[in-house]
């Protein structure tokens, strides 16, 4: 018995749509045609950004009002904690001035690039984790303010991530916790020749791993790991990336198994600094 005509047309429709989708994915993946899809994305983001800002400006105060009303006690406690933290930081700041002066002299002597020398722009975070499958944020600065792909983003105590897509008035920053994120790190004393590795994200909200650290390398819990300035100078050296949460060494294995947490508090990002750092060629 021949199939009804509508059924055949239905199958043809889905086949065509699947083929078009696969063609679009191929265009996006190929280096030669990627600029077409990225141009479309850029245009769409530039159109959508003001709409998002407008809606957020209306919706956020309402949401904040209810959140504040429901969680008043928690907010008060958080406020007290923040006041205490500011007090501690002010104490540390006054004590650290002398050390800083010394450090600056050493840096100048060794001709090392250090973070305060890099110009930066402060951006507001407009969206957090656009997709359930990526650890990323969207910021409100783009190519019009000099923010381009590959620039490091810092804030809240360390490296936040790297700009991976840049549009005219907005950009997407892939966080260090994203599964695709890999950062070369160093730790320990400057004389240690094996104190380096590569930190790799494991997805939003999950601990990161540090790979390639050789067995018997001196390591301690809570130790801070910094960018090594390697990878062709993709990131400037000395930015705090992660803190050692746990590690264990199994005899016979070629590396230490290290779990780290980001030094930056990635769950509460309101503003970040984009370092206008051009990776060296």
């Amino acid at each position, binding site marked *: 018995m021949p199939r009804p005509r509508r059924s055949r*047309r*239905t199958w043809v*429709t*889905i086949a065509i*749509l*699947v083929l*078009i*989708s*696969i*063609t*679009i*994915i191929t*265009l*996006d*993946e190929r280096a030669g045609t990627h600029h077409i*899809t990225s141009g*479309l*994305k850029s245009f*769409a*983001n530039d159109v*959508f950004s003001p*709409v*998002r800002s407008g*809606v*957020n400006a209306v*919706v956020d105060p309402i*949401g904040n009002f209810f959140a504040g009303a429901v969680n008043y006690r928690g907010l008060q406690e958080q406020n007290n904690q923040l006041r205490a933290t500011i007090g501690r930081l002010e104490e540390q700041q006054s004590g650290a001035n002398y050390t800083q002066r010394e450090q600056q002299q050493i840096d100048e002597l060794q001709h090392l690039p250090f973070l305060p020398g890099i110009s930066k722009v402060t951006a507001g975070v407009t*969206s*957090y*984790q*656009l*997709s*359930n*499958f*990526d*650890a*990323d944020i969207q910021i409100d600065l783009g190519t019009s303010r000099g923010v381009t792909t590959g620039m490091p983003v810092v804030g809240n105590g360390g490296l936040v991530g790297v700009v*991976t*897509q840049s549009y005219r008035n907005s950009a*997407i920053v*892939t966080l260090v916790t*994203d*599964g*695709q994120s890999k950062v070369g790190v160093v730790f320990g004393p400057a004389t240690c020749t094996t104190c380096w590795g590569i930190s790799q*994200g*494991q*997805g*939003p*909200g*999950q601990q990161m791993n540090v790979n390639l650290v050789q067995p018997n390398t001196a390591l301690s819990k809570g130790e801070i790991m910094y960018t090594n300035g390697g990878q062709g100078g993709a990131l400037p050296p000395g930015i705090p990336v992660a803190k050692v949460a746990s590690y264990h060494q199994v005899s016979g294995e070629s590396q230490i198994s290290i779990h780290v947490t980001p030094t930056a508090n990635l769950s509460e990002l309101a503003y970040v600094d984009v370092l206008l750092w051009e990776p060296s060629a």
Partner: protein
Amino acid sequence: MNGREVFRLFMLIVLVLIIQYTVGLDLRIAGAHPDLMLLLPIAAGVVGGPEIGAATGFAAGIATDLLLPTPFGLSALVYSMVGFAVGYVMDAGASRREGFWWLTPLIALAASGAAVMLYAVLGAVLGQEQMVKVDLAAVVTVVAVVNAVLSPLACRMMGWALDRPVGSRRRSRRRLMARRLDSVR
């Protein structure tokens, strides 16, 4: 579909897109947020059948892809397949679904779960390995449950866009027709 229906569908996609990428991103449960755009092909499949489900899924997917850093076209592929599958299942059981009010939420639950997993697997195949590293159980649960709860409302809205009354409206229209026929007799 006529021009008016296409325009209404376009407006519905834009509206849901704005809700998803403003309020929707702030609604976070166990680290995952709902995927309201996925609800559109499901509702279109329920209301309009496989062809309209697939076409709506493609349009909603392209709109989503424009704002996401994930591979362009991936959402369009997954959403059109989901819209088609939902429409096909609903068409197949069309004669037996009268009175089963829970069928639409159940279909939305299953379709959403399947769509999230398909999205993650296809993403990993395309080189986005991080997509299978996330807490997939949490994402599937949040997206599926929220879509199941909102599916009756989404079907109503889709019914308006496609000019096809859904659920109680359809039943009340039938009752009205029957009463009119009785009065004529």
